[in-house]
């Protein structure tokens, strides 16, 4: 008679059990902000298609302190998303060889963040230029 009885442990609450997983869940949760922000933009786009009055109503609504508060939070969350996105980047791409040496993870993350900063600056500049 075979006496084996392997015990399978439950996965309940696994993400609370290790700081690494807590961090993972937090960066996954940034998606909620991305979704909500996309929803707001989508609504704005709809209002834009409905004419000037509708658009201006939407613009006014954005001044509501609740909206401002939300956007501040979203700014933090999505910035964190940016940081974690590039932090994982070295794990997701083929090794980059520069001058016979493998580029370090830190260098890849750093370049990613630098590109994001440059793109953001360009965007701001563009909007500023167009608005003037």
């Amino acid at each position, binding site marked *: 008679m075979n006496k*084996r009885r392997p015990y399978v442990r439950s996965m309940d609450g696994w993400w609370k059990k290790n700081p690494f997983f807590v961090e993972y869940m937090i960066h996954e949760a940034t998606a909620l902000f991305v979704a909500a922000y996309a929803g707001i933009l989508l609504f704005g786009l709809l209002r834009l298609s409905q004419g000037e009055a509708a658009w201006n109503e939407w613009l006014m609504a954005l001044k509501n302190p609740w909206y401002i508060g939300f956007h501040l939070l979203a700014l933090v969350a999505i910035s964190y998303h940016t940081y974690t996105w590039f932090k994982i980047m070295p794990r997701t791409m083929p090794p980059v060889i520069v001058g016979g040496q493998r580029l370090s993870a830190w260098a890849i993350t750093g370049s990613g963040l630098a590109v994001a900063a440059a793109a953001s600056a360009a965007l701001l500049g563009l909007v500023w230029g167009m608005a003037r």
Partner: protein
Amino acid sequence: METYKADVVIVGGGGAGLRAAIAVAETDPTLRIALVSKVYPMRSHTVAAEGGSAGVKQATDSLEYHFNDTVHGGDWLCEQDVVDYFVAHCTEELTQLEHWGCPWSRTPDGHVNVRAFGGMKIERTWFAADKTGFHMLHTLFQTSIKYPSIKRFDEHFCVDLIVEEGRVQGVVAIEIASGELTLVEARSVVIATGGAGRVFRENTNGGVVTGDGMALAYRHGVPLRDMEFVQYHPTCMPGTGLLFTEACRGEGGFLVNKDGYRYLQDYGLGPAEPTPRNKAMELGPRDRLSQAFWYEQQKGRTIEGLHGSVVHLDLRHLGEEKLRERLPQIYELAEQFMGVDPARAPIPVRPAVHYTMGGILVDGRCAAPLPGLYAAGECSSVGIHGANRLGSNSLSELLVFGKVAGVEAARFAKSVAPGNSASLLKQAQAVEQRISGLKTKTGGSERIATLRKEMAQTMEDGCGIYRLAETMQKTCDKLDELKARFKNVNLEDKSSVWNTEWLLAIELEYQLDVAQAMAYSAINRRESRGAHQRLDGFEARDDINFLQHSQAHYVAGAAPRIDYGPVKITKSQPGTRAYGAAGEKAEQERKASNV
């Protein structure tokens, strides 16, 4: 009891066992192969080998050189015809492993690179960084998956051979996960269970290296040959015994005593030069280096550490970059286990038991005197290592003779009829009774751990680097006592699933048998040769009386019987074993007298 019908069963999933299994599968794909191993094959101790595997590679090298290094290194106790076969097949086997995917380190133009090793005249050691054994084992294991005829019995612990009609016809093994026994019927059996280093206290070996297969064959009347020759490796971690590979010295590391002096030059290995010279100083053979340590210790020129005396392995002058590239594992070991950064501080080292030169007596085709039984790898004594093995010859041995054992076992299996299943099963059931009895019996009072520790200590005391009749006698007596006390052993664990205490008890019984063979062979060899060095009036080599292989025969309930067998000498007559400048001079003279 479950029965599995195989044609060839291989006990041991290390380098030798896997190579044998593949050889059987390639010889005849219709043969059913059972590969029984007490650990998953990639856990086998071959995984720990660091430095490399020897095979003539460079144009300046020759088979004759490799032959001479091996025979001289073994202090002429080698079977020279077998050494001939060995050196002629190393390179082909290493190339085969390359074809199977082994990540050998390369030269810039893409060829396999070779490095220097102790006692080798020319660089001929193939290496995969300092994880050679690891890569060889994983390559063999993963390649073995390609062959559907190999049926693995992973984590199955072999407890006996089944011998009937004068030939071996199968094995009995415990499935560790359930504690159930299985009979594996077979027409031939290959034993490849590795060495027995763990009968000693401080050693470089893994927990699984307990001499099981040696004891199994021995109990069935197969002699264990040359068991007194146990190699001490000169550069090990104090306390744990973990190894710092010889490649550290091959790459140019120094051994220095407490005054920072390269003491090897005082022991006939000089002159001391800043860069490594083959077969000199730090690249002398292991027995000589370990002996030099002992003398330094006597002279009070070693350094006192937490775990006994040490000398320093100094790698600082090689620089961090080279160390990280060539010796990455060593770097991490030193950093993590000892808190030493080898690029900035010397590593404290001392000798520890490393390798068993002797083993199951087999001929040059790996056949034991018991028909149907073959052996390969460290558990066997095929005759290439003599009284002292050269570093990097063992890994090559696994390949060359693993293959021979597989081919021969396949041939034998096809030449005989299958056995009578009913009577084999009956024998297996008797084995089950005996083995389970060890677990279920009550009333004992001895702890396994205690017996094991006493055994390991007495082996170190009596069969160390230098030996005396008196201490060896004490060791023999102690082993007799331990065997008696073993009868009174008590297991706390009577259960079936993963009962490792039970397995430890069975292993201890194996170890005691093997230890006895070692100690009795040692006390009977009244000379000094290779790794067997005496200080009690037998300091010299004695070719008249002892140019012979010792053979230990099992005697139930008593001390082993020791007798001797001839040594096959073909082209190399026993000469002086000299290294360093003296070695070069001796070689010149040999050459001169030959022409």
